[in-house]
């Protein structure tokens, strides 16, 4: 029977953590769970990065992830508070139904079975790629971690109807790319910029999500010539 040393067990648990956290973001619509999974994903990614850079630098990734998650948390919570306020102000059942329809958007464009199927296909594809090819001399576990997050991020972005969920997809993508970039480039400046861009992306996503819909006049002004 093949025996595993502690390094392999550690590496395997990080990869399992990345798989589970990304899967939670793809599969579950609840925003609290998704945000918690994003934070856990940053911790797993930092653990993977610790094999490439010094530990204090790897922890920077967790910090930037925590800040990005905090920005998104306040936006999610504000959206929920707006929903509760409008629901309380609704005068009758019909008005409540309208408010509920307005706010209770489907997070994803497809149902759970399709998402499970899509995730399984992506997982099989990434396992196939990471186990059969080499890329710029990156070790197979780092390659798998990076590619998995990139693919899961694109999947979340494609399947999302909610802009905040698409934001989680973008952050997954950047997390995966940060792993590949750090594995191939030794530039600390680039590493720092990747972390800063995560925060900037979270800010812009929160900004886009918090804006009220364009009124008809605005839409007319921005849309049709006449």
């Amino acid at each position, binding site marked *: 029977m093949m025996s595993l040393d502690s390094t392999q067990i550690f590496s395997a648990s990080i990869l399992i953590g990345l798989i589970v956290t990304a899967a939670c973001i793809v599969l579950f619509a609840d925003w609290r769970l998704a945000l918690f999974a994003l934070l856990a994903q940053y911790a797993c990614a930092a653990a993977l990065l610790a094999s490439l850079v010094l530990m204090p630098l790897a922890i920077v990734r967790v910090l930037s992830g925590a800040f990005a998650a905090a920005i998104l948390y306040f936006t999610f919570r504000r959206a929920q508070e707006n929903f509760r306020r409008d629901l309380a102000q609704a005068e009758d059942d019909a008005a409540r139904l309208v408010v509920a329809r307005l706010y209770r958007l489907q997070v994803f464009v497809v149902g759970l079975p399709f998402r499970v199927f899509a995730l399984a296909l992506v997982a099989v594809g990434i396992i196939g790629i990471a186990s059969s090819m080499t890329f710029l001399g990156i070790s197979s576990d780092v390659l798998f971690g990076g590619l998995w997050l990139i693919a899961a991020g694109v999947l979340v972005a494609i399947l*999302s109807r909610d802009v905040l969920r698409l934001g989680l997809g973008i952050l997954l993508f950047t997390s995966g790319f940060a792993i590949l970039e750090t594995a191939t480039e030794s530039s600390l400046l*680039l590493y720092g910029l990747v972390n800063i861009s995560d925060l900037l992306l979270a800010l812009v996503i929160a900004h886009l999500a918090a804006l009220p819909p*364009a009124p008809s006049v*605005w839409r007319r002004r921005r849309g049709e*010539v006449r």
Partner: protein
Amino acid sequence: MSIVLTMGACVGAGIVVRILRRWQRAGWLATLGSVVLVGALLAFAPSAPMGLFGRALALTAATRAFLLALFLATGALALFAPLTFERASDAPASVIANSQGAFFFFAFAPFIATVTLESFPLAVFAWAIGLIVLMLSARPQSEGRVGGAAQFLLLIVIASASLLLANRFFDLYPLTPENLDLVRDAAIFLALGFGLLLAIAPLHIWLGPLADELSPLGVAFLVGVAQSIGVWLLTQQMSAVTWLVPRSPLLNALLVGGGLTAALGALLALAERRDARALAYLAMVPLGLVCVGLGTGTPMALAGALVALVNRAWSVALMAGGMSFARHHRAARWQLVGAGAMLVGGLALVGLGPFAGLAANYAIAREASVRDPMLFAVLIVAHALALLAMLRTVWRIVSAQVEEEDAYANRIVLLASVGVVIVIGVALVGAGMFPQMFEMMVGTLGQ
């Protein structure tokens, strides 16, 4: 230090314009002051390279001329922004509409770094940051739903990742010159990254949904300024990695992509009735020409491509200003100003009349006709269709029913904006009559 100071001045200008957004006249004056200040800093900053975090920032004669040309378009767009002034309030729609100019200044600051940085990966980062900042001026069409701006964020991240991976292949290839797979991979990632962000057909599909969420001024900044920065980055990289061009099909990809972009842009503009989308699609036509110019690879066509790029930035700025006049000020005289600005901008965009576009189009078309007559024919047809699309939009404004002027429209700001229209118009004609003014900008490219 002056380059960093110029970037700081851009950010400072954005903050001032944002603070003064409630007062239309004060906002316009602050914008004008900022344009003069940043323009002067750009014009008189010393050329000596400076170090920042171990990387060099250099303002050569060519980069200075290019940045000044694009800053003229940025300044014009920022000065046109008060035309869309809405009654001051704390409503997000009003805040965004009244501080559009601030976002242009904020986004231009990283673009200065993109052009002056001597490191490709950092320049890509700076370009992406500028594009992300611009998305703050977008206004989603429905609350919480994924729209063009959110999708564009994803594309920025994907494209930046592609360009950074391409850079890794650039670094590796000289170490193993026998490995031609690296050349192929570098070309693929480079084409994907630039193709996505420059909206080169068939990777242009994001342009329409994004245009729905930006104002015409925002679209003009995106296609006129931000994309021009990207093309500059591409030309610099092609010059830096000299082995890439002869060993990869990059030039052919540029020729095919350019022809396709021009043709599709013209067809889409002809079918489009929404002004921001129409502007975005019209701007694809000269972008196609620029790609063809780069793809031919001759010094004449390369110079023409850079001139066409500047002409495109100025003419879309003028068209967006005209659209803002026509859309937001319904009195007959302002409608005529809007139609006139759109007509002049449109003619310059397609390269008709005494504008810089004519000289640029001639330089590129001559090389294209020698190399591939079919491509030349496609470009001619695309420009003719773009002209039709532009004339139809102008006619719609001229023939529209005239209404009363809004009560809160400020006459001084309107007259000052007419002055900006005249300045851009004169710049376009001046550049057409004296194309040698671009000599400094295209000189280094020829080398």
